[in-house]
C-alpha cells in the first residue's frame, strides 16, 4: 500500500455500554489498522458482540468516542444505515436475508445504489462482476435465499455488504455454524478481500482461527480490554492468559479427592457417537466417552462445540447418525426417551424456558412431568393429584424452594430463576437416577442457589450416581469434576483427570490450540 503510516479504519475509545444489570463494555478501546485482518477475542460474555454492534450502529454507547476512517462519528451512529453509509458492513450470527427473495433481490434490497425504478440487469451485472472478482463459486443470483446452505447464505451476506461498498467488514463468530471445510473456504475469501484493501474485524473465541488468519488481536475480558497483540509476535499461551486472566493461575489441586474405581464397569459408554444437526452438518464427531458410577465428568467447551447435541443424543431427544451408546451394559442407541429415563437417565436441560418448563404449569404439575406414569409420584392412567401435590410440597421443603403460601399450587413461572431451577433439579434427582445429564444447571443462578445445585449433584455422585455435567463455565467444571472432557468443533479433544487438569490446558483444548 502507498500509505506509509498506519491509517486507522476504526478507532473506538473508552466505549462503555450497560444493559440492565450488566456492564457489557467498560471503557473499551479498539483500534483497527486499515486493510488488516483484526481479531477480537474473549470468552462468552466478554463484550465482543456488543462492541461490534455499537460500531454497526445497532446500539448507542453510553459514553466513548468512535472514529471511522479518521472521521469522528460519535453520536452519529443511530442505526445500521448510518454505519453502512460510512462503509461498514456486518455479517452477524443471525443472517438477515429475506428467505423468499432471490439472491439478487437480497443484494439490491436496501442498497443505496438501487434507484426507485429497479434495474435488475445492471444490478445483476454488478453482482456478477463482484462474484467473479472475488472468485466466489456456487452462488446463483436467481436462487431463493432460503434455499441456500448456511455457508452459501453467509457468502451472500458478505456479498451484500460489499455490494453496499463496505470497506470495513465486521464478522461476528462467522465460523460457529460452519463445517471445517466451509470455514477454510471462508478464510480464503477473507484473505482475498484483504488483498483488495478491505478491513476485516473478526469476532471469535477460537484461538486457532486467530493465530492462522489475523494480523492483530484485541482481547476482551469481562467487558474490558485485556491486551492488544500482533499475531506474529504472540502465542496461544499468551492470548489464553489474557482471555482467562488470573484464573490462569488456578492450581490443579483437587479439593476433595474422590476415588472412583478404575476397574468399575462404566455406567455410560459412548462409542464413536455422531450427531448431525438440523442442517445435516456433523455437530458431534466420533465421540468416545465413559462415565463411571459415582463419578462427575465435566464437559468443557466454548458455546456451540456440540455439547448440546451430545447431551440431547444421550437423553434421546435427537437421533444419532453413527456410533453406539451403552447404559449399564444395555445398548440404548435407538431407544425412545421414555425408556432411557426408565433405565435411569435423568435430564436437566440447558435451556430452562425452552425445554424444561411448561409456562402455565404449577409446581406440582412441573414436578410430575416425566413421572406421570409412576404411581409413586401420583401418576398412572388416572393421576392422583393429592399425592402429586403432597410430594411436591415435601420437595419444596427439602430443596428449600421459596414459593408463596399457596405452595405447590403456585405457577412455576412466578418463581425466581433459582427456585425454578431447584424444582427442575429436584425432578431429576428424586427420580432415583443412575445417570444425571446436567446441562448448564446453574446458568443465571445466584451464589446460594448455585451452591445448592452443586451440593445436590455431589451428593448424588456420592451415592453412586454418574453425573455428566455440561458447562460453559470453566470455574464450575473445575470445581465439580472428577474428570474433565473437552469438546471442540464437535469432537472430544481431550479427557483428563481433574488432578492432571489446568485451566491453561483445558482452555487450549477448548479453543482448538495444540497441546
Amino acid at each position, binding site marked *: 500500500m502507498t500509505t506509509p503510516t498506519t491509517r486507522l479504519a476504526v478507532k473506538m475509545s473508552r466505549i462503555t455500554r450497560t444493559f440492565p444489570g450488566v456492564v457489557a463494555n467498560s471503557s473499551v478501546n479498539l483500534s483497527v489498522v486499515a486493510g488488516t485482518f483484526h481479531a477480537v477475542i474473549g470468552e*462468552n460474555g466478554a463484550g465482543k458482540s*456488543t462492541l461490534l454492534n455499537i460500531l454497526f450502529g445497532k446500539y448507542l454507547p453510553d459514553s466513548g468516542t468512535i472514529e471511522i476512517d479518521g472521521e469522528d462519528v460519535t453520536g452519529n451512529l443511530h442505526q445500521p444505515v448510518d454505519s453502512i453509509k460510512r462503509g461498514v458492513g456486518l455479517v452477524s450470527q443471525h443472517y438477515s436475508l429475506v428467505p423468499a427473495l432471490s439472491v439478487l433481490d437480497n443484494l439490491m434490497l436496501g442498497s443505496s445504489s438501487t434507484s426507485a425504478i429497479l434495474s435488475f440487469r445492471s444490478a445483476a451485472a454488478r453482482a456478477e462482476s463482484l462474484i467473479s472478482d472475488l472468485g466466489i463459486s456456487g452462488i446463483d443470483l436467481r436462487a431463493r435465499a432460503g434455499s441456500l446452505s448456511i455457508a452459501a447464505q453467509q457468502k451472500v451476506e458478505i456479498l451484500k455488504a460489499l455490494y453496499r461498498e463496505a470497506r470495513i467488514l465486521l464478522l461476528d463468530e462467522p465460523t460457529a455454524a460452519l463445517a471445517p471445510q466451509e470455514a477454510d473456504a471462508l478464510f480464503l475469501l477473507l484473505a482475498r478481500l484483504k488483498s483488495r484493501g478491505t478491513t476485516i474485524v473478526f469476532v471469535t473465541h477460537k484461538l486457532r482461527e486467530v493465530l492462522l488468519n489475523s494480523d492483530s488481536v484485541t482481547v476482551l475480558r469481562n467487558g474490558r480490554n485485556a491486551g492488544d497483540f500482533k499475531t506474529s509476535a504472540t502465542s496461544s499461551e499468551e492470548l489464553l492468559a489474557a482471555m482467562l486472566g488470573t484464573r490462569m493461575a488456578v492450581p490443579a489441586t483437587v479439593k476433595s479427592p474422590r476415588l472412583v474405581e478404575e476397574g468399575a464397569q462404566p455406567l455410560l459408554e459412548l462409542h464413536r457417537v455422531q450427531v448431525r444437526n438440523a442442517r445435516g452438518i456433523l455437530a458431534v464427531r466420533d465421540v468416545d466417552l465413559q462415565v463411571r458410577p459415582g463419578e462427575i465428568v465435566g464437559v468443557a467447551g466454548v458455546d456451540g462445540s456440540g455439547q448440546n447435541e451430545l447431551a440431547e443424543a444421550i437423553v434421546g431427544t435427537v437421533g444419532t447418525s453413527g456410533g453406539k451408546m451403552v447404559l449399564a451394559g444395555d445398548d440404548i442407541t435407538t431407544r425412545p426417551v421414555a425408556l432411557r429415563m426408565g433405565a435411569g437417565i435423568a435430564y436437566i436441560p440447558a*435451556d430452562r424456558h425452552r425445554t424444561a418448563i411448561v*409456562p402455565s404449569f404449577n409446581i406440582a404439575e412441573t414436578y410430575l412431568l416425566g413421572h406421570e406414569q409412576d404411581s409413586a409420584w401420583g401418576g398412572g392412567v388416572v393421576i392422583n393429584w393429592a399425592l402429586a401435590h403432597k410430594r411436591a410440597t415435601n420437595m419444596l421443603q427439602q430443596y428449600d424452594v421459596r414459593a408463596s403460601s399457596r405452595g405447590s399450587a403456585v405457577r412455576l413461572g412466578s418463581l425466581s430463576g433459582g427456585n425454578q431451577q431447584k424444582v427442575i433439579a429436584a425432578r431429576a434427582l428424586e427420580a432415583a437416577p443412575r445417570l444425571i445429564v446436567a446441562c448448564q444447571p446453574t446458568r443465571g443462578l445466584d451464589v446460594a442457589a448455585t451452591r445448592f445445585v452443586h451440593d445436590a449433584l455431589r451428593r448424588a455422585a456420592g451415592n453412586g450416581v454418574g453425573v455428566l455435567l455440561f458447562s460453559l463455565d470453566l470455574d464450575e467444571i473445575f470445581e465439580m469434576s472428577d474428570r474433565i472432557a473437552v469438546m471442540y468443533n464437535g469432537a472430544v479433544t481431550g479427557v483428563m483427570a481433574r488432578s492432571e487438569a489446568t485451566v491453561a490446558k483445558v482452555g487450549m483444548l477448548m479453543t482448538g490450540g495444540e497441546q
Partner: protein
Amino acid sequence: MGLLLVALFIGLSGYNVPQAFSALFIGATGLQLVPFKVNLFPLAQSLAQTAPLLFTGAAIAFALRAGMFNIGAQGQMVAGALATAVVGAWDPALLSPLHIVLCLAVGGIAGGLLGAAAGLLKAYRHVHEVLSTIMLNYVAADAADYLVTHGLKERHSMAPQTVKISQAVYLHPLVSGSGLNAGLFVAVVAAVGASLVIKYTSLGFRIRTVGENQEAAAAAGVNVPAVLTTTMFISGLLAGLAGSVLVLGLEHRYIKGMTGTYGFDGISVALLGGASSVGVTVAALFFGGLTSGAGYMSLQTNVPDSIAIVVQAAVVLFAGARTLPWRQRRQPAPVAKPTKGAFAPVDAADD
C-alpha cells in the same frame, strides 16, 4: 357488546328492536317474562340445537389443549353420521340399547379415524393440521356424497340419502314434536368426560404438556407424535358422535347436507367457551338458543333469521378479542436477564 351491535343493526334495518329481542329471547329460552310462562317447545328446540354444537365444540376445544386447531369437525361429523346410518340400518339381532351403543361407537370411531389421519400427518409429516383437516373435510363430504348417490343410495328414491335406520335405534323426542332427545345427554357426558380426561389422566397431562411446550414434553420422555395422533383421534371421535346423534335422533338416515355447519359453528363454541367443559357447555347453549330463537323471531316479527348468524358472528368477533390475551400467555416467558445463552449458537447480541 356484540348484542348491542346487533340491536343497532336490527334498528337500522327498520324493525322494532325490543319486539325482536323479546321474540329472540322467548324462542331461545322458552321463558316469557310478562306474563310469566314457560314454553317447553322452544326450550326443547334450543336444547336440540345445542347437542351437536356441544359435541363439535368439545371436540375442537379438546384438540386445542394439545395446541392443534381441528377445523375438520365438519368432515369428522359427516364420517360419523354416514357410518352410523349404515350400522343403524343393519339388523344385528342385538338388544336395542346395545345396538344404539354400537351405532354411536362406530360413528365415533369413523370420525376419530378421520381425525387421527390429520394427527398422523401432523405428527410424522409435519403437515399443518389446519390445512389437512380442511382438505379432509372435502374428502369426507364428497366421498359421502358419492356413496349416497351410488352404493349406499336408497333404491327408488330420488333423493341422495341412505335407507332409514332400524326403529330400534331411534332416539325418541323427549318433548313431543321437538328435536330434543337423549343425544343431549350423550353430548354432556362426552364433553364432561373429555375435560375429565384432560384434568385427571396422565394422557390429559401429556396432552397439555405437548400443547404448551413440545420441546419440554419430548425432553421429559413424552412421545409427542403419539400424543398428537391420539388427541386428534379423540377430537374426531367427539365430532363423529355429533353426526351419530343427528342420524339416530333426527333424520334417521344419512341425507346429503344434513350435517349443516355444526362442525364450523363448533369452532366458535370452542373459542368462546375456552378450555373448560362448563365454558363449552354454556357457549353451546348460547349458540343453540340463538339459532332456534332466531327461527322463532323470524316467525313472530319478520326479522330474517339470518340475523342469528350476524349475532353469532358479532359475538365471536368480540369473544375473539377477549381470547387474545389468553393465547398470548401461552408463549414462554422471555428470559429476564441478558445472561449468556445455552449451548445453542443462538446468542443474544451481548456477549
